[in-house]
């Protein structure tokens, strides 16, 4: 643990955007928001940032790529609330020192995507994110554990937006903060076609979507996953929201490249 902390510190001092990543061994699972009869989803092995991106990391990214500054970013890629929790000093928008280690929020999908791409990474897919997020501290599938879903729901009732990243316990994969701080962007959040506005609203609306009517029937029995599903379906890529941040993922091959360096 100390080595990890030291390593992370060294990386931060070096002024780069590098962050520890966990290797996630792929597998099959049935998404919690589908019915019990729906088919299993297969997730290939990949790597995922252990923590969400912090304000100071995002600030350093902007230092290198000024097109993503609050004053420069085209309106195609975000809205007025972009980085709205930062302050302007000497004409530069930046986080207050107390915000440095908190998860960055108020960032659009485009900005999040660019942050990851610049490092040769990408945003995790919905399937990947949910695959990792279902793990408890001791098992890859936390739903088998008594009280696991209730703990997540308790957090949804009381979000903790002003905590530093990396304070919650590791889950089975060694990943932190998937539940407890913020909601996170996913690469293909726009694949959620059901509004999820109510529990009754659980099948696709073929007036709005070109699809067979049976596509994507949702199962609201796991309410936490159903809430995430509904939240994602309400998003547009330009949105910059005060409880929505992100972390980056990569292919498992990149992890192998690093071995033996």
């Amino acid at each position, binding site marked *: 643990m100390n080595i990890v902390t030291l390593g992370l510190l060294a990386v931060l001092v070096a002024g780069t955007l*590098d962050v520890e990543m966990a290797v996630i061994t792929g597998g099959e699972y049935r998404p919690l928001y589908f019915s019990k009869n729906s088919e299993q989803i297969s997730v290939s092995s990949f790597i995922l940032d252990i923590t969400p991106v912090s304000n100071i990391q995002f600030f350093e990214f902007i230092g290198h790529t000024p097109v993503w500054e609050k004053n420069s970013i*085209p309106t195609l890629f975000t809205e007025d609330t972009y980085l709205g929790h930062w302050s302007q000093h000497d004409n530069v928008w930046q986080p207050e020192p107390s915000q440095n280690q908190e998860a960055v929020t108020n960032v659009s999908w485009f900005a999040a995507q660019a942050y990851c*791409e*610049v490092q040769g990474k990408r945003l995790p897919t919905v399937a990947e994110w949910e695959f990792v997020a279902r793990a408890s501290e001791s098992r890859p599938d936390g739903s088998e554990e008594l009280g696991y879903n209730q703990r997540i729901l308790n957090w949804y009732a009381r979000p903790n937006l002003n905590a530093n990243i990396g304070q919650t316990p590791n889950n089975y994969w060694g990943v932190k903060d998937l539940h407890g701080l913020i909601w996170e962007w996913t690469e293909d959040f726009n*694949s959620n076609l059901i509004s999820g506005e109510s529990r009754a609203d659980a099948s696709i609306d073929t*007036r709005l*979507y*070109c699809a*067979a009517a049976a596509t994507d029937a949702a199962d609201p029995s796991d309410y936490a996953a159903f809430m995430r599903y509904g939240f994602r379906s309400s998003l547009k890529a330009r949105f910059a929201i005060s409880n929505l941040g992100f972390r980056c993922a990569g292919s498992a091959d990149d992890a192998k*490249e690093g071995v033996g360096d």
Partner: protein
Amino acid sequence: MMQRRVWVIRYSVAVLLLIIAQLLHADFPGDSIYLLQSEWRTQDAEKIYLSDLAGKKLVLSMTYTSCQHTCPTIVSNMQAIENNLPETDRDNVRFVLVSLMPQSDTPEVLKTYANKRGLKGWTLLSGHEDDVRMLAMVLDIKYKAVANNEIAHSNLITILDDQGRIVRQINGAESNPSLMAGHLLHQN
């Protein structure tokens, strides 16, 4: 060490690309879809940038050629819009179909489809999957691969001005979007 070096190179390339993109596209408004730097292939296998479509108004949909649900209706409704335009206005409007299934909708497949459907003068585009997603994001189009090699997707026809700004989006499955779209195209 090796990983770090790779990272620095990737990073420099990305920064350079962003700077070039800024220089090239300083002329487009901040809400123009032409700020996207993506490269596509037309049904004639011609390589074009998205911004090559600038200068005319666009009527655009994201569909795919093997789609049997609402797509044929969307395309028919776009044709209805085209038929409702006076001859003098047709040269100022481009009709564009972007494939949501670029791996199977190759230029040849798009060409066959255009001929079969009688889409004369239309632009059918196939691109990299990441660029398809990026375009869908700026147009607020949702889509998802589902069973039977189909893609469920938003039923939207988007109308853009000659600078690539969204003027209006209409439900492409509705029975008579042609009248509304015709009015919109005359606005400016």
